[in-house]
């Protein structure tokens, strides 16, 4: 599986990348193809298209020693402009 890191960025506006995955590393579960960028769509701007990627994280990666069960997982849809390959 391809490993990716979510950007650790904190701009204002309508953002669909939840805080708890920013800066975290996960594996690509599947690429869903291009979708409208919500960061523009929310303001009725003509939206760019970005691939929407389902990324799988372990609870250990997201919560560290606070994890309830470290090997449990979370899958989140992330637009590709929020991801970098590791």
């Amino acid at each position, binding site marked *: 599986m391809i490993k990716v890191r979510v950007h650790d960025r904190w701009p204002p506006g309508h953002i669909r990348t939840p805080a708890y995955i920013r800066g975290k590393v996960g594996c690509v579960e599947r690429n869903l193809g291009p979708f409208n960028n919500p960061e523009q769509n929310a303001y009725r701007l003509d939206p760019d298209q970005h691939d929407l990627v389902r990324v799988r994280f372990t609870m250990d990666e*997201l919560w560290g020693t606070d994890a*309830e069960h470290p090997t449990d997982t*979370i899958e989140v849809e*992330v637009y590709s402009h929020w991801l970098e390959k590791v």
Partner: protein
Amino acid sequence: MPHDHLSPSGHPYRADDDTPLTYWQTMEIAVRELLIEKGHLSAVEIQHQIDAMDARSPANGAKVVAKSWVDPEFKAALLKDAGSACRSLGFDIGPMHLIAVENTDDIHNVIVCTLCSCYPRNLLGLPPDWYKSREYRSRTVKEPRKVLGEFGLEVAPNIEVRVHDSTADMRYIVLPNRPPDTESLPEEELAKLVTRDSMIGVGLPKHLSELNA
């Protein structure tokens, strides 16, 4: 204030209609009437949309799940593209993009939307109130096992809990495991075992002994 409690159509008003008019209710009436007057919408379209939403319920999802239990080809199609598979059964799910996630002996799936309240509404109908609550949205990604415990569901430590956060354009439905001893049960009876909560992942299908309970 009218005392006959009958609407212009002659039907009694619902109880909600008899409470004092609020600012937000006034706004709903105003927006609706302005959109109709200006030709953006018609009263008929609004009624049809309400009827279409009322017709959607967990029973639709239950039929999809039961079909997947008895028809391996359909199950494969459902896991590949759940939206198309649901449409092939005649369900009008609108433009919704749907992904089915399958429970197995090793994985238990659960659905949440931490950023708002995304839910497969065009298949299952409107979400339950708890699904939209701060408590469910906040905790399910951090302590899913405790959350599931509050729904009466204990997941064994050797089974992976997989949480799906509906952050963007996809909606999700859990394909729960078929209950034991149901091999001889026809599809329509199997559908009666599938609960709303089992398709969100906070519950399991009913046991055979609960079928007529």
